[in-house]
């Protein structure tokens, strides 16, 4: 198969051009226009990612766009396979939800403010960077996209300008830069070994020789630091809990998924032979530790947003359980692959809902201390229900999307006779139940709390819709997840 532009490939250009041009326009127009431009562009983006997903599903193969007519290896291609299409769609949904949620908070009414301009331009920047990561098919192009993502995410962490969040942003930046430099180091070696950085071409050339293995180790280590897999998660709780709720939602739901997505590309695309050795067991082992430690730490947090952030540490762990399970063949592989991607999507929707919900609670009560949450449920019933629905998905209870994801992974663990991963899945679910229950019981105790600010029902509805989407995923017939299998490079 030579790489050539496929019908519908042109759509991919707009997935880059739309966010970038919208960001540049929002930056120049500033003031009240920034938010409007962002919202319009994001809604158009939702339509665009639906079109891309439909196109991939109909065509039954990945969409490819050769840039400038220069085919790889000399040129660079964009490529959207099933998992790109699914993640593009998830990104759009979460982004639109976040933008609707934040529209009144960062309106820029009464003259341009720092927070409004920075929030909207960088939200658009993050969206463009996510799309570039999801569509990239060239390892160096992906490096630039990853850096774009970091540079857009970091200032959102310290948007409130307090010393504490500035320190968290600096720590995040250091981890992220170290991660991308290790990744870049691997890219240099791969270029030296194969003379191309195109993932599809590399998947046919890759050998298990010294340069390739050293490159794989460095790149994986770098990406794990950026995705915050245990024990490289130290930067995450402070950064995600310190950011404004709308930013936290995007950071936790989407941004940490981008490096994970590249680990998938690397292991199942560039070097499929890696997935058969002992290496996947190590990755999944770290994932298991992340699940247990992250959940246990979430149980002990004194602040709601920190609890939700530690829950992200744990949920990232689940994503890495798919590596030893997807090394199998046939239906088991397909099941583990679908399970892993479904976990990524359902966590994105649930976690966005939970962070936005936590933000609303903090806004209404004036704080997010766990022991003083009493009465929040009477004050914001819709939000607390949304938080609970999101929790349902994280725990993996039916009928949520998280249930189907974890059930598929459990199934794969049993079929490949790796029962220990099944044990991790089950105990992780119990711990998750513990911390979700802690929030629900605390917020349901006592009479309605005194509100320091009024929260509009519209914003509560946005949160509820995101949470419902994460649950509804589990009600779709399994066959509809066939999309994630389209254009897979793995064996």
């Amino acid at each position, binding site marked *: 198969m030579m790489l050539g532009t496929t019908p519908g490939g042109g759509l991919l250009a707009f997935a880059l051009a739309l966010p970038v*041009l919208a960001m540049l326009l929002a*930056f120049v127009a500033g003031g009240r226009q920034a938010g409007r431009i962002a919202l319009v562009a994001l809604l158009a983006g939702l339509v665009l990612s639906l079109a891309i997903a439909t196109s991939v599903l109909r065509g039954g193969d990945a969409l490819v766009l050769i840039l*400038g007519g220069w085919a790889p290896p*000399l040129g660079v291609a964009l490529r959207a396979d099933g998992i790109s299409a699914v993640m593009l769609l998830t990104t759009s949904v979460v982004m639109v939800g976040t933008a609707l949620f934040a529209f009144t908070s960062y309106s820029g009414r009464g003259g341009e403010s720092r927070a409004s301009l920075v929030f909207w331009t*960088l939200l658009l920047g993050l969206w*463009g960077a996510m799309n570039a990561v999801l569509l990239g098919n060239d390892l160096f192009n992906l490096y*630039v996209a990853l850096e774009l993502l970091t540079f857009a995410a970091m200032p959102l962490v310290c948007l409130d*300008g307090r010393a504490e969040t500035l320190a968290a942003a600096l720590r995040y930046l250091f981890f992220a830069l170290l991660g991308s430099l290790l990744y870049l180091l691997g890219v240099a070696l791969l270029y*030296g070994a194969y003379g191309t950085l195109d993932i599809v071409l590399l998947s046919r050339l890759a050998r298990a020789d010294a*340069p390739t293995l050293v490159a794989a180790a460095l790149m994986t280590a770098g990406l794990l630091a950026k995705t915050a897999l245990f024990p490289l998660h130290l930067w995450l709780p402070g950064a995600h809990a310190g950011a404004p709720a709308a930013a936290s939602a995007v950071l936790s739901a989407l941004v940490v998924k981008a490096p994970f997505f590249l680990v998938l590309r690397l292991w199942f695309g560039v070097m499929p032979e890696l997935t058969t050795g002992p290496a996947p067991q190590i990755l999944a082992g770290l994932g298991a530790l992340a699940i247990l430690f992250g959940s246990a730490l979430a149980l002990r947090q004194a602040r709601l947003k920190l609890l939700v952030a530690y829950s992200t540490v744990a949920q990232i762990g689940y994503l890495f359980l798919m590596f030893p399970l997807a090394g199998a063949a046939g239906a088991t592989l397909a099941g583990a692959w679908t399970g892993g991607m479904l976990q990524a999507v359902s966590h994105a929707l649930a976690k966005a809902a939970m962070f936005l919900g936590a933000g609303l609670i903090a806004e209404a009560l004036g704080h997010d201390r766990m022991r003083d949450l009493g009465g929040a449920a009477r004050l914001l019933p819709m939000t607390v229900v949304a938080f609970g629905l999101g929790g349902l998905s994280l725990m993996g209870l039916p009928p949520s999307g998280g249930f189907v994801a974890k059930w598929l992974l459990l199934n794969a663990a049993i079929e490949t006779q790796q029962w220990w991963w099944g044990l991790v899945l089950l105990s992780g679910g119990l711990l998750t139940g513990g911390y979700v229950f802690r929030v629900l019981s605390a917020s349901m105790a006592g009479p309605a709390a005194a509100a320091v600010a009024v929260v509009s029902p519209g914003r509560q509805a946005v949160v509820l819709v995101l949470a419902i989407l994460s649950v509804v995923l589990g009600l779709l017939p399994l066959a509809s997840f066939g999309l994630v299998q389209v254009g897979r490079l793995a064996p």
Partner: protein
Amino acid sequence: MSGAWLLDGVLLLAVPAIALASLLSRRVLPALAAFVAYGLLLALVWMRLGAPDVALTEAAVGGGVTGVLLIGAAARLLMPAAAAPPGWPLRLLTALLCLGVTAGLAVAVLALPEPAPTLAPQAAEQLAATQLGNPVAGVLLAFRAIDTLLEAVVLVIAVIGIWGMAPDGAWGGRPGPVQPRLADGSVALLAMLLPPVGIVFGIYLAWVGADAPGGAFQGGSILAAMWILAWLAGLVRPPRIDSLALRLLVVAGPALFMLVGLAGFVVADGFMAYPAAWTKPVILLVEAALTLSIAVALCLLVAGWPMRRARA
């Protein structure tokens, strides 16, 4: 070439030595001085590796502008009393880890396949279609134009990120600390004499980049350096961050590049393709806009966030 091995030998010893000096120096300023020297020596290494385009970039950005940025920061940072160095077990562990990485890289470098895989023949073959003479410009503006475009976007995002650090009351003001005007002295003289030469040189570098070593990044960073010099001497002030002209300058390069890329759907063979008859003029136009935007962005990245609101 009897002298070449001598130069290589000196560089191979001097570069790690100066890196070590920068790493181990007790005080910050000598470490920074060593770093600037490291950048200049690396520029020489790049000449030895047959990459004059990279040598120019490394000297201008890697050593020069980065050096100014770091030294300026060191002057404003109150250095905390030296913290106790980490205990020896941690240092030993880190040293072993780094040694491991170096060893792994060394093994990998020595095990690279012979003959080396290369895209040079393909680049040479396709270069004619770009109507450019400099193969590196061909890669940056045609074959891998998407990297260059995203990178120009990176600069815009970095500018927004740095502005976003402003205290709320200072939004709308001029970026960076106020530089007192140097009325006399040699720096003021330098700041008046050098920019005319430097501006000509910067524009020249950007212009010849299509066919000879140089280009938007190198030219843009020289232009930026000239503005920074005049700014440090108090001769010019950055405009307010809500100035429309300033914002247009920052986005001109990436915006034009993206629009030209989209126009490729209509007037050429697709996204980011150039119309065959107009390839070189269009590339030069894009490069001119990029040079301008890169220069402005680099200035703003050095200057920093707005610190106080300008008086109306």
